[in-house]
């Protein structure tokens, strides 16, 4: 099984976002970068599949040259090679992103049996790149998946819904987008990191198409500013808490 995982470099969002002066980006000079939890489990799942079934794991991203950092991180987890579709740092819209990814996959020597993506990116959250890639490749796609079973050239995907779960059985090759919770991803080991340094990364440089979903402005929403009213310290605050329970009618 040769598995491709798509990831996206995004700023680490531990604190309050600040927007750049042009209103188009997050001020990231002081921030670190990471990938979405959805993508972390995607890579972990791919590595588990390769460990079990044999084969390879390729990590692909579309992003600035610095996105090599995210590819190397995932190589430390166990990915074998990387494809970096380099941008000049400008955001690509979902259609442009999907085209570039599909082109890269078509051009690649490996015929990927399974392409795994996060259900939606952490930052843009467009919910569509995986689906668009699948259409371009002519492959079935299942989204929002939290369980993957591979058997006899077919994949069974499990998707949680309110009432329980839906099962999808599709022939391979296929595309799947996954959700955090699919597994608990491992931390990279030090030997894994050392090996990652030497793994190959292929760089591609397609042109950025004009975006059809064109970002014009970003802002931090005005949150209802609450300052918690302190009911007390330790157990003696319990009666006050129960008063609140009564007020809002939960008891």
């Amino acid at each position: 099984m040769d598995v491709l995982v798509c990831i996206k470099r995004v700023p680490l969002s531990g604190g309050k976002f600040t927007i750049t002066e042009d209103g188009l980006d997050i001020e990231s000079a002081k921030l670190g970068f990471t990938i979405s939890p959805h993508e972390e489990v995607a890579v972990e799942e791919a590595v588990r599949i390769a460990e079990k079934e044999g084969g390879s794991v390729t990590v692909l991203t579309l992003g600035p040259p610095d996105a090599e950092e995210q590819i190397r991180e995932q190589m430390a987890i166990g990915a074998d090679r990387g494809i970096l579709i380099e941008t000049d740092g400008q955001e690509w819209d979902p259609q442009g992103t999907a085209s570039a990814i599909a082109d890269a996959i078509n051009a690649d020597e490996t015929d990927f049996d399974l392409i795994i993506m996060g259900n939606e990116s952490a930052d843009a959250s467009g919910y569509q790149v995986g689906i668009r890639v699948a259409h371009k490749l002519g492959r079935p796609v299942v989204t929002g998946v939290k369980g993957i079973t591979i058997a006899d050239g077919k994949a069974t995907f499990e998707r949680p819904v309110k009432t329980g779960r839906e099962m999808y059985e599709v022939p391979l090759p296929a595309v799947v987008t996954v959700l955090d919770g699919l597994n608990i991803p491992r931390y990279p080991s030090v030997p894994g990191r050392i090996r990652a340094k030497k793994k190959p990364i292929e760089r591609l440089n397609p042109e950025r198409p004009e975006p059809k979903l064109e970002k014009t402005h970003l802002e931090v929403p005005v949150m209802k500013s609450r300052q918690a009213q302190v009911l007390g310290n330790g157990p003696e605050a319990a009666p006050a808490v129960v008063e609140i329970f009564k007020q809002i009618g939960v008891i």
Partner: protein
Amino acid sequence: MSTLPSRAKAVIIGAGIVGNSMVYHLARLGWTDLVQIDKGPLPNPGGSTGHASNFIFPVDHSKEMALLTFDSVSQYKEMGVFTQCGGIEVARTEERMQELWRRMQSAKSFGIDGCKMLTPAECIELVPYMDPDVILGGFYTPTVGVVDSLRAGTIMRERAQEMGSLQTFANTEVTGMVVNDGQITAVETDNGTIEAEYVVIATGLWGPRLAKMAGASIPLTPAVHQMIDVGPVPRFADAKGDIEHPIVRDMDTNMYERQHGNGLEIGSYAHRPILHDPEELPSVEEAQLSPTEFPFTAEDFELQYEQALELMPEIVGDETVGQKYAINGLLSLTPDGLPLLGETPEVKNLWSVSAVWIKEGPGIGKAVSEWMVLGESAIDLQSSDIARFYDHQKTRKNIKDRTAEGFNKTYGIVHPNEQWASNRNVRLSPYYERQKALGAEFYETAGWERPFWYESNADLVEKFGDAVMPRTAEWESRWWSPIINAEHLQMRETAGLVDLTAFVEFDIQGPGAFDTVQRVCMRQMDVPIGRVVYTPVLSDNGGFKSDLTVMRLAHDHYRVVTGGAHGMADLKWFRDNLPEDGTAQITDLTSSLTTLGIWGPNARRILESITRDDVSHDGFKFGTCKSIEIGSLKVLASRISYVGDLGWELYVPMEQGAQLWDALWEAGQQHGLIPVGIGVYGTTGRIEKGYRAFGTELETEFNVVEAGMAPPKVKEADFVGKASHLKHRSEDPVATLCSLTVDDHTSSTGEKRYMMGKEPILTLDKEPITDAHGRRSFVTSAGSAPSVGKHVLMSYLPPEYAVEGTQLVVEYLGEHYPVTVAVAGATPLFDPKNERILS
């Protein structure tokens, strides 16, 4: 949020380990009405304390830092937040093994007991997950431990609050500082303005930003220290508490490894220096983790992964052990690696307690609080005094260059005479080009490039043969040349010309000038015009604040001459002691005047050949100064000597220095004048004369009587430290500064070895020697005494050993060498009657 009170005795900015320690000790020493503010939340406001690795290795080559650390550990223990786990510093190279033996010396010299050298096998017994094949040995300190610095901070803060002396305001950011007439008067915050008599900046790497608001300078830079945490480690699965395995410092790779719960923390000082700007730190809200925890840059840790894997393959090589956490933590670095403590020289009552590590925090809080409340601290803080810097040293370039160079020396093997490579040629004397042409080997003092010796004198090495005491061991030959000793011997035969431009000179003038110097200086200043007085400057407790020379140039005009290294602190001390009524003023002449010293039996012949003024023994007495003419130069000549020979210090305006050099040089040719470097002036010349140096022999922890420098009688007039000095004179000293000679230099391999300073002096049973005040005996200065053919060590010794002829041993790099007390007290070894100077 409650509002700030409108005034306070002192506002302490910062609630990290340092700010909390300050509020506690200030309260303990009796100050009430303290207000502490921090822009972050409590108990972890987001500074460097919050991400510190929190371990403490007590051994340090700096006595000041070792004592402050020792005191901090006692405080942490008292608070119940110290867990002793032991620590091993391991060596991968022979050079490092030697360095570990040096650490053993420092341990014994500064009283850190129980340390021992370990074989690889012994290291593995303590830390079984190390690969013994990677290391040559280790230095074990049983008293290494880990502290909970956040908890300690909370305890100290709450103690101050419980005393009713402190109010603390979190989430309160300083927006401005109010300075009136050079004195801080108030702090402006986003929660109101508070007037204060004193303001203490204890904000770690935000210090520069705050100081700038007041027009002061705290020269530090935030720098990255990388740390990762890997786990879970199967071997540590049952670990109880924070730590139970010894901490390992892998010195040669600039890394450490410590068990933390079921994980292993790996820290590094090996990566490229990553310096940040205090102005550009993120706010608490913007920061991803905290304002001082930056995103980890894995590419800077690449080599460290491999090195950690080499040393601890069982853990680091385990594929199931993952990297759970990694940060680029920020800490504060300074141009010389030492803290920034004390009142800022720019703004009165604005204090800095900056660039302090967890290991020194409580000790420094205590010492600086003593300094603020009592006027001085029990532990001498002279090398950390923030007043030590010259303007050029506070520039962004100097800070960045020197911290970048210093960073990778965090675990480095730093030679006692090691020179900085960066930011050199900052201050050049008028003689610089001439000296370069003579092959000067330049060392730096306070930015000045000073010849340490001259290659042009290389021929003299052959002339004096074994009398130059040649060295074969690489360590002692590094940053040294036998030419130094050859210059010394030649100067004693003919004459030497010494560049002393690095001296700090400042004038005190006005009707109040006499009272000022009389109060600050221990020696009598009520002297005739034209007298030159060498005097200690005392602290209240009778220890040494400085030693310097004062010339009386007019009834209301004194000129102070002091060393370059400590000159700025001296200048501040005199400024602090000026009369409040403005009747005396200080003018700093350091950059206006240049000084040349000419000493040796032929010095007078040379001088009289180029001046018509009387420079005869009777016409120009020792200890006097006067203006003489040399060609078109008016020269202030001062007949004193720090090298033990006849001669003068000659002062002229900076722009005329080159002329003076040329005149002396030309006249000196027929009298055998040679250029002589600071190697002679600073070490060999003085040490055989028993002259003490500030910062090595002289410090506030030892008094004038112990140093052997008490004058026959004490002046009538009052002076700082007089009461203490009188008391010291009435008691038998518990230690006396002695000169010891090394009887046999031969090591076990047959090579002759020469001590460099700070080695422990031991009894014949190789036991440490401790005086009645608990102070260890160790070598304060070491150096060749070429004229007496000995290597001389200075050391304070308790009375039972401070007896001429006493046999002792010195420990040097793991071996013991016999020494003899040659002089107890200040009598010179060479020319004890000072016939040369007085000829």
